[in-house]
């Protein structure tokens, strides 16, 4: 399968990428690792007429200690997130889950920023950023702004990013001593999660759901139940509340509503054992 024709420009800096976005408007798409965008283009579900390649902006590939948080450059590849000593020590949920995205070849190319900006509800990392209460840093013509993860995912493949903005950094708060878990349920090793659950616990809990609606979802009913002292099993019984899971070849919506309760319980138990 071959994508429809497009013009290709390569940005040598964030400013250059923003200028290209301003010039071409919503006809253009940013290309990072390409592992969300190119498959869509090959299926002709996306047909941008201009691709702005930001894949060479290596100064946006980093993992840095920001004091109370860890900052990850948007162009950091999944493999580099997976093996980062700083993330393994301070945000192990993210490092661990990055190692479960797709397969090794995908992790050599795909980037955390690409995955988050794509906003696929079936992707692993957006839910992790949501569970951790991360912050997304975007740059646009008006400068830089910070967006809370809870306000970032607007609809199916839609985010708070404006067409002339670019995601530059993902900040994850450190939660020393927190227990964590990522439960990914699928039938073939490399597949998307049929349902996934990201959980982090120390005092308060953050629980986010994969593939249970049109965006990655925060399991607020579960979090509230835990806050009022419910056991993991009792809290997990609320996991499907407020969700609208898809119905597809991998499972019916009812099956997902059941599965999510099982996976939330497992995630809370594992996080509890790790904390």
């Amino acid at each position: 399968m071959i994508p429809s024709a497009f013009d290709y420009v390569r940005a040598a800096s964030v400013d250059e990428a923003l200028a290209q976005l301003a010039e071409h408007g919503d006809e253009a798409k940013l290309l990072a690792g390409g592992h969300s965008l190119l498959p869509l283009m090959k299926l002709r579900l996306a047909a941008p007429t201009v691709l702005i390649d930001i894949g060479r902006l290596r100064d946006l590939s980093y993992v840095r200690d920001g004091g109370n948080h860890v900052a990850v450059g948007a162009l950091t590849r999944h493999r580099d997130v997976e093996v980062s000593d700083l993330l393994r020590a301070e945000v192990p949920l993210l490092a661990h889950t990055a190692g479960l995205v797709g397969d090794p070849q995908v992790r050599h190319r795909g980037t955390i920023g690409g995955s988050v900006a794509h906003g696929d509800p079936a992707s692993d990392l957006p839910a992790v950023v949501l569970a951790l209460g991360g912050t997304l840093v975007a740059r646009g013509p008006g400068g830089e702004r910070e967006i809370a993860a809870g306000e970032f995912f607007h609809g199916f493949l839609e985010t708070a990013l404006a067409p002339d903005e670019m995601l530059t950094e993902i900040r994850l708060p450190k939660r020393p001593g927190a227990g964590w878990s990522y439960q990914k349920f699928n039938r073939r090793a490399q597949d998307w999660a049929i349902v996934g659950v990201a959980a982090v616990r120390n005092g308060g809990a953050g629980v986010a759901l994969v593939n249970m609606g049109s965006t990655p979802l925060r399991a607020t009913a579960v979090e509230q139940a835990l806050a009022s002292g419910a056991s993991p099993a009792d809290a997990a019984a609320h996991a499907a509340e407020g969700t609208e899971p898809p119905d597809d070849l991998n499972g019916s919506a009812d099956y997902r509503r059941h599965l999510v309760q099982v996976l939330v319980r497992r995630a809370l138990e594992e996080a509890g054992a790790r904390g």
Partner: protein
Amino acid sequence: MMTAVRITLTVNGTRHDDDVEPRLLLVHYLRETRGLTGTNVGCDTTSCGACTVLLDGESVKSCTVLAVQADGGEVTTIEGLASGDAMHPVQEAFREHHGLQCGYCTPGMVMAAVSFLAEHPDPSEDEVRHGLEGNLCRCTGYHNIVKAVMAAAKTPAAPRA
């Protein structure tokens, strides 16, 4: 529309300059522009791994990389693994342990294994199985493929592309 882009790629050690259409996929560049048909197209949807090659030493699925993205890089295909008549230790191990049946997945499987071993020089069998998650063998010949990769890992001083 479709302004051609000049790219420079080092493929199996030889440098090439080409004007390519931006939408040209790396796998088609390798097979059609370079005539290196050892790299197969299987699913064409980033799933099966038949098109796996090394880009700057790391395994990638060449059906999901644009040739323009690889510009300036070094690509190694199955044709570039052997040194003269001496097969690469991973190729040798696949031969020795019969890590193939129909052979279609084999070039991608070997390239994925070379990249995996560079990152995991002393893997457990479980790590090998997970490390090859991106490659499907529809003959289901995984048993001997895993055996071959385990054997290659034990080859002393295996050169790792």
